[in-house]
């Protein structure tokens, strides 16, 4: 088995999808000639040609809308949004136009497009290049939203998203691009949309997470005295209620680990679902580990504090398991 970079998984997924389906096209800023700002599209222009690998102006509103029109008319556009914040100027085309095309046309028009965006904190890009922003999209009927967590799920989710008949947003935690893991590419491998994975089993608590926080959760679970089950949600909308509820029935405790601000995180939906549907199974209140309600700081010292660390997660889960009471977040005493 070879060690591969996560960014290679993006490239391989795009390349394989383009080879398998001649209607797949790529669009974005610097994705063609330059091979992509994160080098995830290198070589695709030479292999698939300028009609399918398209450099755009710095003009997200235009090329997101172009993707919508092209998708309705039979192409499968994959759009790269360099940093997820850039979606702000193109949100209408995705959340209002693409997401309602099928509904308004009563199934006669569909929008099979994929938006890939790098997202997340941890690399000193400051507050306008470091958010996840899944809460802008989650809960929009007609859109699906997935988050990659390693090379394998990156390949698998991208292939599934490109094959999906509806618009899908795939958030790629930027910090993972330069991580390596043992993985053998299998062109038939898919990570199904809407299905979570149990990545570690345990019996004291269920730690539900996604994206770059998956590896934080795994590290926390490995060094914990408590037995922690780790679930990678993979698809944030629609999310896999069954896998989570079945796990809660076994462990009796829910902890969400979110790279999201406390007041807008996806874990609020997970916690309310578990509280409503598995109340009798719970030994402790559902607990959420989130970011504070503050923008992402640039300072390395502060950004390291801002993101949950494995040690902090271990401590929080241990407190919940030993007392059956939800521990306070670190920022309550710091703010």
């Amino acid at each position: 088995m070879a060690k591969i970079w996560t960014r290679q998984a993006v490239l391989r997924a795009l390349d394989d999808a383009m080879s398998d389906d001649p209607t797949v096209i790529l669009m974005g800023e610097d994705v063609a000639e330059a091979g992509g700002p994160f080098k995830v599209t290198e070589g695709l222009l030479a292999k698939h040609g300028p009609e399918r690998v398209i450099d755009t102006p710095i003009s997200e509103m235009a090329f997101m809308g172009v993707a919508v029109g092209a998708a309705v008319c039979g192409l499968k556009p994959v759009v790269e949004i360099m940093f997820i914040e850039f979606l702000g100027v193109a949100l209408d085309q995705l959340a209002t136009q693409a997401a309602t095309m099928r509904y308004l046309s009563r199934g006669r028009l569909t929008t099979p497009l994929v938006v890939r965006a790098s997202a997340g904190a941890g690399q000193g890009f400051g507050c306008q290049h470091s958010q996840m922003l899944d809460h802008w999209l989650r809960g929009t009927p007609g859109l699906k939203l997935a988050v990659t967590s390693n090379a394998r799920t990156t390949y698998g989710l991208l292939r599934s998203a490109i094959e999906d008949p509806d618009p899908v947003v795939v958030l790629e935690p930027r910090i993972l691009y330069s991580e390596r893991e043992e993985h053998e590419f299998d062109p038939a491998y898919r990570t199904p949309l809407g299905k979570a994975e149990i990545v570690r089993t345990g019996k004291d608590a269920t730690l539900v997470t996604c994206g770059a926080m998956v590896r934080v959760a795994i590290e926390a679970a490995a060094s914990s005295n408590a037995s922690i089950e780790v679930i990678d949600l993979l698809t944030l909308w629609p999310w896999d209620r069954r896998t989570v509820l079945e796990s809660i029935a076994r462990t009796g405790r829910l902890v969400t680990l979110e790279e999201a601000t406390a007041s807008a995180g996806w874990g609020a939906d997970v916690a309310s679902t578990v509280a409503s549907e598995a109340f009798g199974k719970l030994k402790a209140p559902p607990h959420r580990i989130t970011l504070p309600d503050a923008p992402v700081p640039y300072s390395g010292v502060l950004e390291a504090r801002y993101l949950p660390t494995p040690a902090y997660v271990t401590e929080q889960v241990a407190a919940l398991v030993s007392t059956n009471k939800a521990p306070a977040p670190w920022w309550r005493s710091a703010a």
Partner: protein
Amino acid sequence: MTISNSNSPLARREALQNRLDQLQRMVEIRGVENRIQKLFAEGHVRGSTHLANGQEAVSVGIARSIDPDDIVTCTYRGHGHALALGVTPAGVIGEICGRTIGCAGGIGGSMHLVEPSVGLLPTAAIVGAGLPIACGAAMAARARKNGRVALAIFGDGTANIGAFHEALNFAAIQKLPVIFVCENNLYGEYSRINLTTPVEDIAVRAASYNMPGIIADGQDVDKVAQAIAGAVKRARRGEGPSLVEMKTYRYSGHSRSDPGTYRPAGELDAWMKRDPIAIFAERLTAEKLLAPGGLEQMQAETDEAIEQVVAEVLASPAPDLVELFAHVSAQSPGGDQRHSFWRN
């Protein structure tokens, strides 16, 4: 020469090759919009509607100059365009009344008319949204090498939103077969153009994007058709996009609740003297296609036909509860009805 009488959107579209049908369609659009206003007063219409009476020549001039498998995007002021492109009066009135007979089954409403069989994508309630989408349709057409074009219809208010500029820039860079049609009716919602836009002619903005900017008389259906046909020909030859500005006027306010009192005295009357239906009827009379008094007869017959449609619409039910959940995604009820543009 007689008027075609068909209920299929495609046949209605093809009928527009007949000049008398063009006039009849303009009369129909005026009649349907007047009736919609009345249906509102009668309590059959919810939300809002955006009428375009006075702009009928633009709708029909466009529809007769492009093919049914060319793609059209349009704004929420789209009743006339939908009817001109081929959507039936029952499809339009039914949609506005929220009935299953409507072109979107009563799920979309006045601002979301749609008919894939004649190239009409769902009309958009967001200013500017249709321009980038038309560029994408044009890109798909070019990828298929099928000679099809896309056309975006929008108002002068759209010329100040980013999507207008980004779409024109993108289309020019990519040399896409797309035609941007601006209906300059002098008002963006409640505001006159001089208060919002530093140029009088939207067409001058084409120069920044290195494409032709053409101005046409939007009250004359033949002038509209001529301008559109030229831009379409250029697009089909692979020479890229054009911006075509139609000088026109809406007789009503922005939406149902707007009486349009902000208009300077005399402006409406001056425009009504150049009514597109009167101008074209006079020409057809001169061409001996329309008998003297023929317009009045046509209007009476059309209004009668519209009344029959209204009766049919009001007898049509509201959508079933399942439609609320249908067609949200491929997994929803309703199944995949996907329309394929362009078999070749």
